[in-house]
Every structure is written in structure tokens, then in C-alpha cells.
């Protein structure tokens, strides 16, 4: 029988299935309050920003405060389009997975701004080391949708030759590094990559993304130590979407007030930002990128957001969190907020928005039809089976040559 009071502390979320969603414990400071220091600031002097919450869009959807990046309406519309495309694509791919067209899928619903705004604030040649919920970067960098789908359905046109799970994209031409699938492993790699940028005299930087739960990994510590020691031009993003599959963020956070705060211990500039605020993500990334390029070192950015859907198609969140939590999330929905900002500026309207959604949905449907002409995982054609033995080494040695022969291909 379970003890009525646990003998040691095990953190628990405020609400579980059957409860009313409760985010009353989350303190949301008004938009526009945070200071925007010079990019040369010492990392240790950013504690207020690590404990605060950089927000630009206020409750009336107006851009306020020092962090307002003052983007042109065209740029805002472009960002909105990438976010809507990300959402439409995710929706359609999830449906196709349910129809058995894919082995697996992962949506980024609710977190579209985290990926899209960051990608737009970076240079297109900055190397990104994403985790599996930043597909928005690919849309922002203009990757061909058919190619993305061919990867997800592992067909003959899959640029990864059917070796990776769906959503684990690689796109070298777009400076989009591999997505490992193991958590946090790429965080310290991004630091090494960034150091090489510096070594080679490139102006490029690197950026990586992990989730709140992944900060518990040793590689998180390793990445921050390396970034601090070698003053690497890298942006280390922690996407705090509150849930690591079924485990709430408090299991990784422990007694830490924020995840950004952890960066302060390493002497790194650290910001906690509203991850559902396109302008805040854009501005913070721009600041961190400028800081990195100028040689002032790395920035840790915690994007405070909410995973509005399941972890993956293999997950059912109704087993561990209350229904309606996403709708109750106090920072709203990133797409709605940017849309309303544009409408408030007189640069957008509901009709145009609906038309864009429809257009993008049709684009996604047409793209899938085209992707299927190159095969599906279920019916083929796949990459030729002998490619299984390629790329293990630059050249296969006698073992692989023999094993390929043993398989008869």
C-alpha cells in the first residue's frame, strides 16, 4: 500500500486528468517590461532576464517595450505564413499517420513560433541542431515540402535512404543538421561546431534546441561548460513546453525557478522568453545571434511555451494531464497572437487568413499526392535495399561486402 505522505519529495503538477486545468501558479509579467541590455553584457549580469519573461506582444496584441524588433509587415506576414504552414502540415501528416501512411509522427502544435521566429532571426547559413519539434525551421528556410514528405514516408526519394524515423530530418543544403533522436546529444556538438566556425574565421554561428526534460541530461551540463569555457558563438535553446511525454517540467527543473537560470551558473547570458510570442522569440534570437557573432559568447534561451498536442502519435496525453490545458495556457496560441497583431496593425484580416489556410492546406495535399508517386513505406518503392550497407563507412570493408552478399543484394 502506498504511504499517504511520500518519504522524500517527488514534485507533482498542479493538475492531473479529471482536474480543472490550473496555471494560476504561473506568474506572467506584463509585456514590454524587460530591459534589453547591450549584447556585450556579462552573462552573470542577466539574472533578472533569466528569472523574468521577455514579452513583446501585450494582451491587446500590440508590440511594446525595448525588445520590439519593429519588423516590417511583410516579414510578419511571412512569419505567420510559415507558422500556419507548419500547423497545416502537422495536421495533415498526423491524419495520414492515422491512416497508416506513416509509422510515426510528431506535431509541433503550439510551439510554431519557437522554431519559425528563431529561424527567421538567424542567417540562413547558421547551422541549426534541432530536436524533433522544430520542423518550422525547415519551412522558414524554404525546404521543399515534397522532399520533407518523402522522408517521412521513407520512399525512394527519402534523402536519408529510409534510415531515420519520420520527422528526424536532415537537410545539409539548408544548414539543418541531423536530428539524432537521442536527447541532448547534439547540444554539446553544436558548441563544437560553433567553435569550428570561429576557428575557420566564419561569421556563421550555431544554434541548438532541446526540451525542458532534456536539461536533466549530462550533455546539457557539458554543452554549457564548453560554451562558457571557449566562449563559443552558439545559441542554446531550451524549449520548455511543460511536458516531457508524461513527465511535467518540475521533474527536470527540481528546485530551480526557471531553466534559463541554470545558464547563470555557467556565466552565460540567459533569457527566459514568451515562446508563444513570435516577436519575443525573434528579438531574443536576434540579440543572442548578434552577441555570438560579435564574440561575446553563447546565450541560453528558455522559450516558455506549451505542447498543445500529444508528444507523438504513440502518445495519449489524456492519461496524464487534464483536458483543456492547451486552451487554458495563459500565453495563448502563437498563431492567433501574431495574426491578431497583424490585424491590429491593419495589415491582415480574417478573410485573408482563412484563404491562406485553405491555400496552404491545398498545397500540403497536393504535395503529399506528389510525394506518394515516389512510393510509400507500406507499398514501396523504397531506397534500394543494398543502400542499407552504404554510408556505414566511407567505403564498405570486407565484412559489409560479405554481409551484403549474404543478404543476396
Amino acid at each position, binding site marked *: 500500500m502506498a504511504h499517504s505522505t511520500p518519504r522524500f519529495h517527488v514534485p507533482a503538477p498542479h493538475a492531473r486528468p479529471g482536474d480543472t486545468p490550473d496555471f494560476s501558479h504561473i506568474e506572467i509579467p506584463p509585456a514590454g517590461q524587460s530591459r534589453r541590455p547591450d549584447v556585450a553584457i556579462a552573462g552573470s549580469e542577466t539574472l533578472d532576464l533569466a528569472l523574468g519573461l521577455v514579452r513583446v506582444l501585450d494582451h491587446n496584441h500590440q508590440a511594446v517595450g525595448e525588445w520590439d524588433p519593429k519588423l516590417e509587415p511583410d516579414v510578419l506576414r511571412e512569419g505567420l505564413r510559415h507558422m500556419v504552414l507548419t500547423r497545416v502540415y502537422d495536421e495533415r501528416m498526423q491524419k495520414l499517420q492515422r491512416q497508416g501512411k506513416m509509422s510515426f509522427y510528431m506535431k509541433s502544435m503550439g510551439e510554431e513560433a519557437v522554431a519559425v521566429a528563431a529561424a527567421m532571426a538567424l542567417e540562413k547559413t547558421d*547551422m541549426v541542431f534541432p530536436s524533433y519539434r522544430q520542423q518550422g525551421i525547415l519551412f522558414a528556410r524554404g525546404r521543399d515540402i515534397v522532399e520533407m514528405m518523402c522522408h517521412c514516408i521513407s520512399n525512394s526519394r527519402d*534523402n*536519408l*535512404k529510409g*534510415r*531515420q524515423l519520420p520527422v*528526424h530530418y*536532415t537537410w*545539409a543544403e539548408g544548414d539543418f*543538421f*541531423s536530428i*539524432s533522436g*537521442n536527447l541532448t*546529444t*547534439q*547540444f*554539446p*556538438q*553544436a*558548441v*563544437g*561546431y*560553433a*567553435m*569550428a*566556425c570561429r*576557428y*575557420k574565421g566564419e561569421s556563421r554561428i*550555431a544554434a541548438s534546441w532541446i526540451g525542458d526534460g532534456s536539461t536533466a541530461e*549530462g*550533455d546539457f*551540463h*557539458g*554543452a554549457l*561548460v*564548453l560554451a562558457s*569555457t571557449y566562449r563559443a558563438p552558439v545559441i542554446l535553446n531550451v524549449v520548455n513546453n511543460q511536458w516531457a511525454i508524461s513527465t511535467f517540467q518540475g521533474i527536470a527543473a527540481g528546485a530551480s525557478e526557471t531553466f534559463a537560470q541554470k545558464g547563470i551558473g555557467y556565466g552565460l547570458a540567459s533569457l527566459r522568453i514568451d515562446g508563444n510570442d513570435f516577436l519575443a522569440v525573434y528579438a531574443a534570437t536576434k540579440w543572442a545571434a548578434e552577441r555570438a557573432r560579435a564574440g561575446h559568447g553563447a546565450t541560453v534561451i528558455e522559450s516558455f511555451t506549451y505542447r498543445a498536442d500529444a508528444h507523438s502519435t504513440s502518445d495519449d496525453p489524456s492519461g496524464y494531464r487534464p483536458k483543456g490545458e492547451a486552451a487554458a495556457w495563459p500565453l495563448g496560441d502563437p498563431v492567433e497572437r501574431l495574426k491578431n497583431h497583424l490585424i491590429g496593425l491593419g495589415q491582415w484580416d480574417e478573410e485573408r487568413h482563412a484563404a491562406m489556410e485553405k491555400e496552404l492546406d491545398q498545397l500540403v495535399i497536393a504535395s503529399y499526392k506528389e510525394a506518394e508517386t515516389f512510393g510509400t513505406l507500406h507499398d514501396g518503392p523504397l531506397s534500394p535495399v543494398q543502400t542499407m550497407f*552504404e*554510408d*556505414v*563507412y*566511407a567505403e564498405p*570493408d*570486407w*565484412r559489409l561486402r560479405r554481409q551484403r552478399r549474404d543478404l543476396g543484394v
Partner: protein
Amino acid sequence: MIQALNSAMDNMMERDANVLAFGEDVGYFGGVFRVTAGLQEKYGLDRCFDAPINEAAIVAMAIGMAANGLKPVAEIQFSDYIFPGFDQIVSELSRLRYRTAGTFTAPVVIRTPSGGGIRGGQTHSMSPEAFFTHIPGIQVVMPSNPYDAKGLLIAAIESPDPVIFFEPKRLYNGPFDGGAGKALEAWGKHPKGEVPEDHYTLPIGKADIVREGAAMTIIAYGTLVHVAQAAVEQSGIDAEIIDLRTLVPYDIETIAASVNKTGRCIVAQEAPRTSGFGAELAAQIQEECFYALEAPIKRVTGWDTPYPHAHEWSYFPGPQRFINAMREVLEA
């Protein structure tokens, strides 16, 4: 052998500005075994530098750098300490080429001293090479003398694939025949103790027949190559000795030709017996040479215990253990 490895690093850093060396105590001090001595002074702080004590971070940093076109040579101070970096090696380093279908690669070299015979106790004596031979995508090399060490390290740095480069630390300062407590012999008299100053390479994947013989084949690598030679001298048994030099990919042609000729075989490793690299060799040899074999393949190995401190010489497979096995193989 230390000077040979240092010379390999020096040649490569001189030739290629993208070659970098780092690890714990590697920079200013030049490494606890002095393999990188003088390199920071000669090539600068950003080419040979100290790393924090975090083997996972060291390997990960190397992966990131290599993916961006550099040629990092990372040192793990003792191979016993490599395990915090094991995930980065198994899940990342070895598979980057594969999972990106060749669009990203990480041709990293990880140098690491291994093996016992130095009174290192359980945390400074391990021979963990077998773990690394079980990972598709990396090459595993272990030289047994200065000449090979230099040629193979340069080949490893020039390899397009990641290489784990084990340096038998008992051999750093001289050959070792397994006679516990004997005065150290210098490399000077050894036929492969002389090392040219200039750049040269030896092919990865090619074994070396260090002694031709007819009675049996002994396959060894690292320190045990010398112990096998001592056993042959002491016993007078005319064994052929193969120094494997590369474990992955191992030189099956040389091995099979020798065993088909002699009909008897001993495989040797300093590591514990169960699931050691000798097991792979024995399995492959019986597939290749079954009808030539006149006796069961015998293993000479460490025991299935951690490497003990006080009883080091009871653990270490010295010449007598070889001679016992050789007699058994002959009499079978």
C-alpha cells in the same frame, strides 16, 4: 612510442591547419603521458588545448568540429574513463554518416591509453576495446610498437571515418615481455623502435606477421604481441605471430592464410575473457578455416574479474599462460 605518437601529431598539425588536439591535461602540460608535449607552444592555444573533465563533452565537441570540416584528435586520458563519452561514440559519432546518408560526417580520432601492467589498479588498466568493435561505423586500431604507432595514427587522422586509437600504455616507454618486475627495456633495440621524422602511413585494416612459424598461429595485439614473442623464445615452439594492429576492420585474409597453413591457433587479449575480441576472432576463424584446424582454438586472456591492483601479475596473461596454451594446442 610516446615520441612516435608526438611526432605523428606534430607532422599532421604542421601539414594541416585543421588538425586540432585537445583533452584533459593535453594543452599546456602536454598530456599526463606527454604525447602532446610541446604542441601547444608550437601551434598555439587554439590548436592544442585543455578540455574540461567531461568525456562526453570532449567527444561531442570533436563531433561538432569535425562536422564543420576540422580534424580533431581528442584524447581520453585513460580508456577506463571513456565511458561517460560512450553514448556520444555509440549513438552519435559512429552513426552520423549513416543517419544523414553521407551528408554529414565526423572523422574524429579518439586517442586513449589502455591496458595494464603499470600498477594502475582497476581504473587505470582496462582494455575496453571489445566494446568499440561492436559499433558499426567506427574503426578500432591498437599498435604495438613506435613505428606502427606513428604510421597508424597518421592514417587514423587522414581516415574519412572515426577511429578509436588505443595506445597500450605499458608499451609507451619500451617493449614488455610480461616478466613482472623486470627492468624497463628501451625501444632503441627493438626493430620497430626507430621512427622516421617524416610523414608516413600504414594501412588501417592490415595485420603484420611479426614472426613466421609453422607450428601454430598466435593472434595478438598491443602489449600481448611482445608477451607472445617472449613465450615463443622461452618455449622454443615455432609459432607464427600475427600482430593484428587493426581490430575493426580486422585483416581476415592474413589471419585465414596463416591458420590454414599452421592448422592450430591461439587468440590473445589482455581484456576479460567473456565476449572479448578473441571470441570474435575464434568464431570467424572457425568459419574460415574449420577444415584446416587440427585442434580447438584456444584463448589466452585476462580473467573475468576487474583488473586487480595487488594481484596484477596473476591477472595479466604472461608468457607462462601462453606457453601452457601453446602446449595444449600442440598436444590436442
